[in-house]
């Protein structure tokens, strides 16, 4: 037992070192590429970008920007779940509803973000509403699709068992149907938190009044490429951190749900 935990620990440390080495490799490749290109306006050296990034941290603007983008992304995610979960459940339970909803879902899934943007700008103008709406419509199909799959994957043998023991319907729905859904909802959540940043920043870039996307757009306008890269770095770090936090919570609290192949 001790041996196995020791080897697991050393294996984990090895992965951590490899991960850090991978980051180092990215910077090394970037630095070499910037030397080869030798046009800072196109590809600045990583050192300039790091300096710009540290400046953002020092004056506190990074945190305000992060909060602005994060709040829009989270509200958009909430809206996507609020509509996606019930709709996915209906589509999963009823084949008729699934067929009826299919064209609508296909339209939502395939519609380009800029088409939504055009309508949203006309409706709400430049501000926080438009990016929030864009995040919501982009994530909604992911959520509803996962939930519908979750409902379809309910183990009917468990339902049969519950019927033999005359378990009340309410308990069957809560303990079996909703229980089966959890890994699928969490899977949708994991995919969504990775996507919501990117979508929110693009929407801010095109139709926002505040946030990382807006600052990125201004930095590009003033040809301040190191700042463009610094904002990108900020967005990547924030997205990765959020995913890591989710993975940690999943590791600690998700033990019972880890039986599902979807979340392995």
């Amino acid at each position, binding site marked *: 037992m001790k041996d196995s935990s020791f080897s697991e620990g050393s294996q984990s440390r090895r992965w951590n070192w490899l991960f850090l080495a991978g980051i180092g490799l990215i910077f090394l490749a970037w630095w070499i590429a910037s030397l080869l290109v030798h046009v800072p306006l196109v590809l600045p050296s990583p050192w300039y970008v790091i300096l710009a990034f540290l400046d953002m941290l020092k004056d506190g603007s990074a945190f305000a920007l992060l909060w602005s983008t994060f709040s829009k992304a989270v509200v958009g995610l909430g809206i996507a779940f609020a509509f996606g979960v019930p709709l996915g459940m209906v589509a999963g339970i009823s084949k008729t509803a699934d067929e009826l909803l299919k064209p609508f879902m296909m339209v939502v899934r395939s519609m380009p973000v800029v088409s939504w943007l055009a309508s949203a700008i006309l409706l709400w103008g430049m501000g926080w509403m438009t990016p929030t709406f864009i995040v919501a419509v982009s994530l909604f199909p992911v959520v509803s699709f996962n939930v519908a799959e979750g409902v379809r994957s309910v183990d009917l043998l468990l339902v049969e068992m519950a019927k*033999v*023991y005359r378990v009340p319907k309410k308990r069957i729905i809560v*303990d079996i149907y909703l229980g089966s859904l959890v890994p699928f909802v969490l899977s949708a959540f994991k995919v969504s938190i990775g996507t919501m940043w990117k979508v929110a920043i693009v929407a801010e870039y095109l139709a926002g009044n505040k946030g990382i996307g807006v600052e990125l757009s201004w930095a590009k306008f003033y040809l301040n490429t190191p700042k463009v890269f610094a904002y990108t770095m900020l967005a990547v770090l924030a997205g990765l951190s959020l995913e890591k936090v989710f993975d940690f919570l999943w590791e600690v609290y998700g033990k019972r749900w880890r039986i599902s192949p979807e979340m392995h």
Partner: protein
Amino acid sequence: MGGVRKKVADIAGNALKIEKLSKSYGTLKVLDEIDVEVKKGERVALLGPSGCGKTTILKIVAGLTRPDGGNILLEVSKIGFVFQEDRLIPWKTVCGNLEFVSSDTHKVEKVLKLVRLWDYRNFYPLQLSGGMKQRVNLARALLVEPDLLLLDEPFKGLDLEIKAELMNEILRMCRSMSITALLVTHDLREALIFADRIYVLSPAPARVKNVLEIDLPSEHRDFCDTKLLDKEKEVLSQGFWLPFGLPESPLRSK
């Protein structure tokens, strides 16, 4: 036409009576006029080849499937079902799985102690061995204090040691709680150890080919007991039960 499943006040000392039970799935006939009687406190086995419709009989008795013809007369109301697959909710602990069926925590504690799994009450099914999962399956069935215990090949896929342990567990429970039990199996030795009476079924569509009365004392109902093995040889030597299509035996009782 449709068959009838009903609870009756008295079936002449029987807990369950199956009369002329028929069932088809589409054009495939699986049960053909099956007659089975299970007296109160008796342990009965339905022995037949895989796919002959044994599980369908249990499902009809449990009210999960409707028969096409015949009668199911039940003198009992509380039914426990030990499923072939453990059918445990994977995201609930052992305790949670039992509390899903009954919220009476005292009863849950009692049955978990009975099947010697109290120390594992906070374990998830994934953390249990196959034999332990089947014991939880058994505990869940006992939790409803059944008048009739239905066992659908509960030993399938278990190795001999665990199988023997689980069999002893089930026999101990049935004896101590005077539970009427109906086991379906394709394994002659399991049926001999478990049952007071064995109904031998033919391949689908299942018919009762023979009925064997088993009078082995309880101390000989063990997988390696020589008396049991002799009994098994004796039954096999009759030549009627394997393969299931051979002529019927004179052992058949009325």
